[in-house]
């Protein structure tokens, strides 16, 4: 199965859907590995929201594309270079600080994204956004609370959060390298960037995390299907069954 996507809006939405799916898969890794039971349950909730969001977005994409493929086809039958998620969300759970820093930076971003989708001319997308924003709000409050706890908790938690933020900030630059599709389907790209920066900078200051200057990165853009090496491993695990048993129905 070779999946092709023709429509511009579908291509654009695939970025948003893939970002939700890949982060959902990463967060699911926390299941039975959380620092305590309540947090294990919270991470499962966040992961479930992300999978649900991805599924709804793939359905919208499938509809735009004339139902040539199902949501599961998009998930299980595309290769590394055919995935268009932010590199930020495929980064591993090195420790809980990485999980939190990654989630927080993502949540602030998608809060802006789905706020703008609320006035999309695509009614399904606008409708979905209202529901999704409630979920993002919960996840955002959760990740922000943990930013504070880790940043201001103990020396060790501060050091770990600082390391995580310093690593992950390298994957932020590409988020705001807007292309034509972004400019067509967002009402205001610049606002996404300025709101993200003011919110994240304020939180990093409040939780005592420093922002070192990061030189401009030459890691090529996620919009062209460029990734870190992590993506291949994530996909090979996630796609194993449908790939190994192509005739099976699940």
């Amino acid at each position, binding site marked *: 199965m070779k999946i092709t996507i023709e429509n511009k809006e579908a291509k654009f939405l695939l970025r948003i859907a893939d970002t939700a799916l890949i982060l959902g898969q990463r967060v699911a890794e926390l299941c039975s590995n*959380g620092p305590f039971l309540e947090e294990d349950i919270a991470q499962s909730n966040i992961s479930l929201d992300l999978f649900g969001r991805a599924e709804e977005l793939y359905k919208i994409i499938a509809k735009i594309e004339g139902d040539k493929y199902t949501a599961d086809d998009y998930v299980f039958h595309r290769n590394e270079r055919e995935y268009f998620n932010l590199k930020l969300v495929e980064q591993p759970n090195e420790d809980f600080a990485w999980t939190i820093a990654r989630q927080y930076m993502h949540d602030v971003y998608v809060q802006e994204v789905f706020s703008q989708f609320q006035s999309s001319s695509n009614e399904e997308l606008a409708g979905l956004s209202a529901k999704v924003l409630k979920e993002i709000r919960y996840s955002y409050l959760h990740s922000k609370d943990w930013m504070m*706890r880790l940043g201001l*908790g103990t020396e060790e938690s501060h050091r770990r959060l600082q390391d995580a933020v310093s690593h992950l900030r390298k994957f932020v630059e590409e988020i705001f390298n807007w292309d034509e599709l972004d400019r067509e389907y967002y009402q205001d790209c610049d606002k996404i960037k300025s709101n993200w920066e003011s919110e994240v900078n304020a939180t990093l200051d409040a939780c005592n995390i420093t922002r070192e200057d990061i030189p401009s990165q030459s890691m090529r853009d996620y919009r062209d299907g460029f990734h870190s090496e992590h993506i291949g491993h994530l996909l090979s695990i996630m796609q194993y069954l*449908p790939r190994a048993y192509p005739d099976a129905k699940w």
Partner: protein
Amino acid sequence: MDKFQEAFDEIIEKDLKVEPRDWMPEEYRKTLIRQVSQHAHSEVIGMQPEGNWLLRAPSLRAKQVLLAKIQDEAGHGLYLYSVAETLGISRAETIEQLHQGKAKYSSIFNYPTLTWADIGAVGWLVDGAAIINQVSLQRTSYGPYSRAMVKICKEESFHQRQGYEIMCQMAFGTPEQKEMAQDALNRFWEPSLMMFGPHDADSVHKGQSMAWKIKRESNDHLRQRFIDRTVAQAEYLGLTIPDPNLKFNEETGHYETSPFNWDEFWNVVKGNGPCNTQRLDHHKRAHENGAWVREAAAAYAAKTENKVA
């Protein structure tokens, strides 16, 4: 007999519930702590064999249903640790006992989930067996435990349906899928039956637990109910119960089975099953890796509470 003992006996006699603040015999408390903490650990350790397939679930739907299910198990663990707390033992102590090997969990979770069909078999057979036991425990004499069971049973019946749905997909799927389904049934059948514990004649704690109404029905009684119910379900799937001696006894109205391999059962209970070390190590590792997170949360709470004061 003192008045406290008399009041307790009356609660049991009248089928009322013993509540945390009521006086209870020390042995009653100990028995419950052992049973409830074992139950809590089973829920939590049980997350691992299912979690083994979470990242490989073959559809978006299967992924979400399985994750929601495992999340429920974590929630059941939470209720049950809270029930244990009402008996005077903290969650930290309970977990410490698990790590030291003093507290057990259901031996079924020491078996590996080797294929996706095992996720079906675990839901169908393991949760199926657990429900039969837990439905019976809704009438247990300790109030908080009984109420936890009522809530848990509602979710468990959804779990069993999730498992049976996977078994249907597999059994009615491609020949390879059907083979996986039969293989899963072959491996999980007998261990599921042994989940109900030793035969009544060999059960150490049975007499007193029944007298105190902690336990309401005997192991063999519950096991028989499970067998009778499950054989028909396997027939519908077109799968064969892996027991050449399985037969329906017209007189009793029950199925009869071959004797179980109790040597294997006890050896796995003692720690020598396929995954005992792996399961415990996984739990210890997650707990140890989370220590700095729990410390950070406590330190932050202390700092911000001081600020308010």
